[in-house]
């Protein structure tokens, strides 16, 4: 069971208040007619599925109802940070270096 901070409500809440919505920062092709089937399949189905840090979407369904993103480690489940939808993907390596320094 995760404890997740909603960046809108600015509260730590138990996982059961949230729904996970998969890998974050996957943009829908701007002009769907111009991408081929390979690119379309990549958009729909291909995922990094990393053993390590993962930027992912969450929705605070039993709270404010809004989507946001989290960076979580897929092996030890540690959440590095959560941030609002629309904000750029953080530079995870740099954040980790700064934390250690």
């Amino acid at each position: 069971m995760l404890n997740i901070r909603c960046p809108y409500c600015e509260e730590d809440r138990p996982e059961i208040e949230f729904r996970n919505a998969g890998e974050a920062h996957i943009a829908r092709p701007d002009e769907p007619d111009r991408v081929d089937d390979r690119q379309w399949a990549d958009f729909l189905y291909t995922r990094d599925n990393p053993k390590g840090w993962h930027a992912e979407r969450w929705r605070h369904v039993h709270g404010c109802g809004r989507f946001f993103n989290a960076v979580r480690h897929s092996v030890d489940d540690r959440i590095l940070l959560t941030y609002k939808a629309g904000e750029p993907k953080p530079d995870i390596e740099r954040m980790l270096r700064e934390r250690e320094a």
Partner: protein
Amino acid sequence: MRYHIGNLLRGSLSGQTGWPAQWRDPAPKPSYEAIVVGAGGHGLATAYYLASRYGVNRVAVLEKGWLGGGNTGRNTTIVRSNYLWQESQGIYEHAMKLWQDLSHELNYNVMYSARGVLTLAHSVHDIQIVKRHVHANRLSGIDNEWLTPAQTKEFCPPLNISPSLRYPVLGASLQRRGGTARHDAVAWGFARAADRLGVDIIQNCEVTAIRRGPDGAVTGVETTRGAIAAPKIGVVAAGHTSHVMAMADVRMPLESYTLQALVSEPVKPVLPCVVMSNGVHAYISQSDKGELVIGSGTDQYLSYAQTGALHISTHTLEAISDLFPAFRRMRMLRNWGGIVDVTVDRSPIVGLTPVPGLFVNCGWGTGGFKATPGSGEVFAATIAKGVPHPIAAPFSMERFRTGRLIDEAAAAGVAH
């Protein structure tokens, strides 16, 4: 050593001492004809059929931990073939036929027990879906039948069919050839039989890189026990497939999740069959040791942590307590998780990859144990011949580009 009545009797009279090891513990050789990555049931079956049916004997199976320590040793062992689509029926029924004679073929008791699998319906929608499966199966010559609530109760006496349940039992399908098999014995039986045919099973040997030649084709792997060369590599790494395939720059249509199971304290025989309910998310049978073996759901987020959240198993136990009031006060002894590799259509990927010489068998997700012998057999044929076995052909990675998905997810409402 072949097991037969003579040496089994001698064994029981001599306190089961003096049995030789069931397989060797070889050091990796510099090169092989083919390397299988992952010594789960599917990888071991692949190696066994490569050597026994397809004439490829110089095979190594590389395993980062111990053989059968992945999902093969963590699953709830339900075996059935009553899937909706013809492509799925092809591969799962191929496995079902192999289960019938597997103990004999491997000279090893895999404890396949055709005790029958009930799939419960709890709503009008469930009834329609379950009956659709029954009809689709029968059209393909696969046994599956519809039972009324009273018939279901007769087949499974401890089941609660009271209409006042939150999710009442409105009927069920029954596949009589369905049942269970002993998961460890399946891994051990294939390992022993493959080893006898000269296959090297190398444990504590993690693949860390895939080597490729100037033409892009694979030439071998790097491992924690050194480099090993081979012109053909079959990746059968279940939840870790994306990670291994990334070593050859191939991105997969997979997500890895933790799926949990639990066992109760052992009791006398009480549950004569397998009961599954996709609607309330509960899967239960009783092992020969007497434990109730209970399958639960997946966590909602990608994970390699192999420990699931408690609220997921609680949810399943609530459903089990409703369906089987007699089990309410039983204690659970253990729970655990396995990392399952899930595709969007909940069907596996078996076949070639964009990299020459690299083959993949994955995406079995929450329900691949039942397919172990069939999956190994068609994957071995695919590796040996370099073209997909006809049963495997629809399960290519290309289906995600062409759109020819085999959507068992929509068919079942959930996986399994």
